[in-house]
């Protein structure tokens, strides 16, 4: 009977395409999401008081369950049911759910759990139940420092997502981005980092100089970005924990468009000099620089394939910006975008089979994906201005930024982060404290 839920899920994951044919906007992000109940994690009185002292949260058990609920809801794949309808108390549900009660409110899956304060630590156990089969699907327990409580919620979400979809989750992750403020003609830009759900926002630079295009390394501890420090646009490296910054692309010209190689050992970037932009790599250990492209055109926005063997980039060597791929040594350059319009910002998916891109056609900007041979182009979203897709670590979701058109007086400008599923559904505004652009999604922080 365990299969029951699994089959349900298969039905639910695969038919996106089929639905896409008949459904329109109304169903965006609401394609029959799986109804499930997230019971508040139960907590004893002593633990409750301890956490209240440390974390200033009245009931950390329900706070964690709210995080799980929100994550699962925003994925668009689940429909967490209203807690008011729950009949069973959290502590009893965690011991042995009365499945009839959960069935009654149409929950197909149930998450229960328990939080305790043990030796100054937060100990959490949680269980995932298949309501129709009346069976436990998963049980896990872990211990961490109390201040990590939000991450606990994200890790539970990831485990549930993985168990129910068969794919890794993306909730215990962070987003690095550029926080924007001020008038359009004098934007103040700062590097900022936040949890995937917008919590724990932190500014990493002060805004004294222009900063652009931050990107994580594979372990998500380092960031490479472009800074105009001392009015010299150069590629920099930032250690997020220590705050140490160093210039890596200090060539006589402009270095920009940096990204890490999949093994984290190199930075690939563009170097512009005398009106010509080529792609270079720098080995971070021995600082050896290698020239990868050599063409009078503008070659930029390089991105490695996950196995490190290929590089996608955009070049205007044909007259307009188009997407090309080549071997990582620069040989075998092939143009892959042939549709109408201008193509840029190729980013290889973590699974290796797709390239996400920005397209400009007839005055509209699109975020789309194509296979690595350029075939199977699918445009996911159209707008006045949007660009710079970045993949969730499981390759299911893209985050990008969108700018609004100003009115005749030049007013009404804004830049915001948005996310959309690979299916083209579930388009969502990602809330940020300030205006935001150039998002980059981290890898999964746990595991």
């Amino acid at each position, binding site marked *: 009977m365990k299969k029951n839920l699994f089959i349900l899920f298969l039905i639910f994951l695969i038919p996106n395409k089929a639905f896409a044919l008949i459904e329109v906007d109304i169903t965006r992000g609401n394609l029959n999401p799986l109804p499930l109940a997230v019971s508040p994690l139960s907590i004893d009185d002593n633990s409750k008081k301890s956490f209240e002292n440390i974390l200033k949260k009245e009931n950390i058990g329900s706070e964690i369950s709210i995080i799980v609920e929100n994550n699962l809801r925003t994925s668009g794949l689940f429909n967490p049911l209203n807690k008011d309808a729950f009949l069973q108390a959290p502590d009893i549900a965690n011991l042995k759910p009365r499945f009839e009660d959960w069935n009654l409110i149409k929950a197909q899956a149930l998450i229960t759990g328990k939080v305790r304060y043990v030796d100054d630590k937060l100990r959490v156990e949680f269980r995932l139940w298949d309501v129709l089969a009346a069976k436990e699907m998963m049980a896990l327990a872990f211990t961490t420092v109390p201040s990590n409580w939000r991450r606990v919620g994200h890790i539970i979400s990831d485990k549930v997502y993985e168990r129910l979809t068969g794919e890794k989750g993306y909730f215990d992750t962070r987003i690095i981005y550029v926080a924007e403020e001020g*008038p*359009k*003609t*004098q*934007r103040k830009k700062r590097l900022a980092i936040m949890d995937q759900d917008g919590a724990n926002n932190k500014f990493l630079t002060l805004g004294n100089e*222009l900063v*652009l*295009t931050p990107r994580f390394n594979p372990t998500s501890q380092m960031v490479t970005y*472009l800074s105009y420090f001392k*009015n010299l*646009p150069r590629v920099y490296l930032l250690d997020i924990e220590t705050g140490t910054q160093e210039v890596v692309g200090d060539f006589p*010209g*402009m270095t*920009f*468009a940096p990204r890490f190689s999949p093994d984290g050992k190199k930075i690939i970037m*563009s170097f*512009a000099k*005398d*009106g*010509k*932009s080529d792609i270079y790599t720098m080995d971070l250990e021995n600082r050896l620089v290698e020239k990868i492209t050599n063409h009078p055109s*503008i070659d*930029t*926005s390089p991105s490695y394939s996950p196995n490190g063997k290929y590089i996608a980039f*955009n070049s*205007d060597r044909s007259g*307009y*910006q188009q997407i090309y791929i080549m071997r990582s040594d620069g040989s075998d350059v092939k143009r892959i975008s042939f549709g109408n319009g*201008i193509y*840029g*910002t190729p980013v290889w998916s973590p699974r290796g089979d797709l390239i996400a891109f*920005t397209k*400009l056609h007839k*005055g509209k900007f699109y975020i789309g994906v194509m296979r690595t041979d350029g075939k199977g182009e699918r445009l996911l979203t159209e707008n*006045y*201005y949007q*660009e*710079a897709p970045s993949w969730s670590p499981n390759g299911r979701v893209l985050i990008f930024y969108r*700018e609004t*058109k*100003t009115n*005749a*007086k*030049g*007013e009404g*400008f804004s830049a915001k982060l948005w996310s959309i599923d690979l299916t083209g559904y579930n388009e969502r505004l990602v809330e940020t404290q300030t205006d935001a652009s*150039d998002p980059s999604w981290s890898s999964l922080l746990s595991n």
Partner: protein
Amino acid sequence: MILSKIYKNTLLILATCLVLSACATKKQVVTDIEGQMQGDVYTGTETVEYLADGVPDRVFFATNETILTTASRETLRAQAAWLRKNSNINVVLEGHADERGTREYNLALGERRANSAKDYLMTYGISSDRISVISYGKERPVDAGSNPLAWSKNRRSVTVKAN
């Protein structure tokens, strides 16, 4: 009957007014743009500053282009003459793009525009030692508008005194 006739006439008059006023505004906009753009290159003076009397500080480009127009070459020759007379002054050429392109490509495009101005100054005898180049891509528009005229003002290379 009479009423309806009056009504009809009023309607007609109203309609004519509407057509006329629509024409008037439309015409005005068109001449505005015509007066300030050639093709899609900005030819106005609204945003232009001067390095010295008769020496404009900036040149403008067509969409996606880095080619200098006749007017741009004239501006740059005036700048070169002024730089030859003021041999102690160095300059920075700041290249810019409009907002209708991806950020990274626009950085490269701004760099290419500034370099195309630099090359021209050099052919008129200004040493490359006196000229540095920086691209701001689409990061520093002069006009916040989202229309062809605003974009044309933003596609530019600006010559700024460095000392």
